[in-house]
């Protein structure tokens, strides 16, 4: 049975089908939901010059709020399902790296995620971050549309 199920969220509705599947699996195996939101590194150029600082700060605040909202939704759904839940925000890493690292550090035995998230090219068969997780993760990944 699955004890610790990692559910990455990008804060979009694409993550919700993965969350619902994770909740059902956790309910069957008395598992814990680990919600994670990964903020990618900032795109702002040359932050060390200080010129971009106001833009950067605004961007960071917005990202932080988005991440908080995303993991709060996971906590709420897990609470409604009566399941133990822990959530994390990871910043400064590409999302796929953050997801794999969190899975390892949190001793998760499954990752449940959507086949694509917010970014990327519409023409791609599968989201690039999801594909990177699939290619590198040592633990099983359940992929939902």
């Amino acid at each position, binding site marked *: *049975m699955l004890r610790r199920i990692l559910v990455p969220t990008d804060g979009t509705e694409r993550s919700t089908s993965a969350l619902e*599947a994770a*909740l*059902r*699996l956790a*309910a*069957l*195996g008395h598992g814990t939901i680990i919600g994670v939101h990964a903020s990618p590194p900032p795109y702002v150029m040359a932050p060390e010059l200080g010129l971009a600082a106001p833009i950067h700060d605004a961007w960071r605040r917005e990202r932080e709020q988005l991440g908080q909202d995303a993991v709060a939704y996971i906590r709420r759904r897990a609470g*409604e*399902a*009566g399941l133990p839940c822990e959530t994390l925000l990871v910043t400064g890493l590409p999302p796929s790296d953050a997801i794999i690292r969190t899975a390892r550090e949190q001793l998760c035995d499954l990752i449940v995620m959507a*086949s694509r998230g917010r970014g990327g090219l519409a023409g791609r*068969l*599968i989201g690039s971050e999801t*594909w990177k997780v*699939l*290619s*590198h*993760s*040592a633990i*099983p*990944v*359940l*992929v*939902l*549309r």
Partner: protein
Amino acid sequence: MADPLDNPSDSTAGKPPGRPLYKRILVPTDGSDVSAIAEQAAVEFARAHGSEIVALSVAQTYPTYAAAEASMAVDPNLDNDALRDWAERNVRRVSAAAAGAGVACTPLTVFAYSASDAILDSARDHGCDLIFMGSHGRRGLSRLLAGSETQKVLAGAEVPVMVLRPKPGTA
């Protein structure tokens, strides 16, 4: 605890064994070590969750030129027989593992040009609600190539796909 049927909002908790979360799991196998990992995990998952398994082996045929065939005194059916034997051997292995774990298993072999198309068609035709796939964890270009069938299945699947990779150093 109240019957989950009485409380639809709580239908996720403690499902009775008669209504498994995933009823039928498609397990494609090509006889490789990588697919053996997926087979093993699928049988274990099916046993724990009360699911049944559809074991699929795709005998991949290659388009041949009629003229080339005619010029060779070769019966293409010989090739097909060998392919079918190989495919049946693969699904028998899964059937045996499933039987050992007390999991119901439907063996399935199909001839197809494309493994991913065959997997997607079989999932649909047999009402599978989950697919277990092994994926190669190679580096660089070969990683892209080795994973391309998995990628096509992921892109085309209407149901969730469980992707498993061999542990580092084992394949």
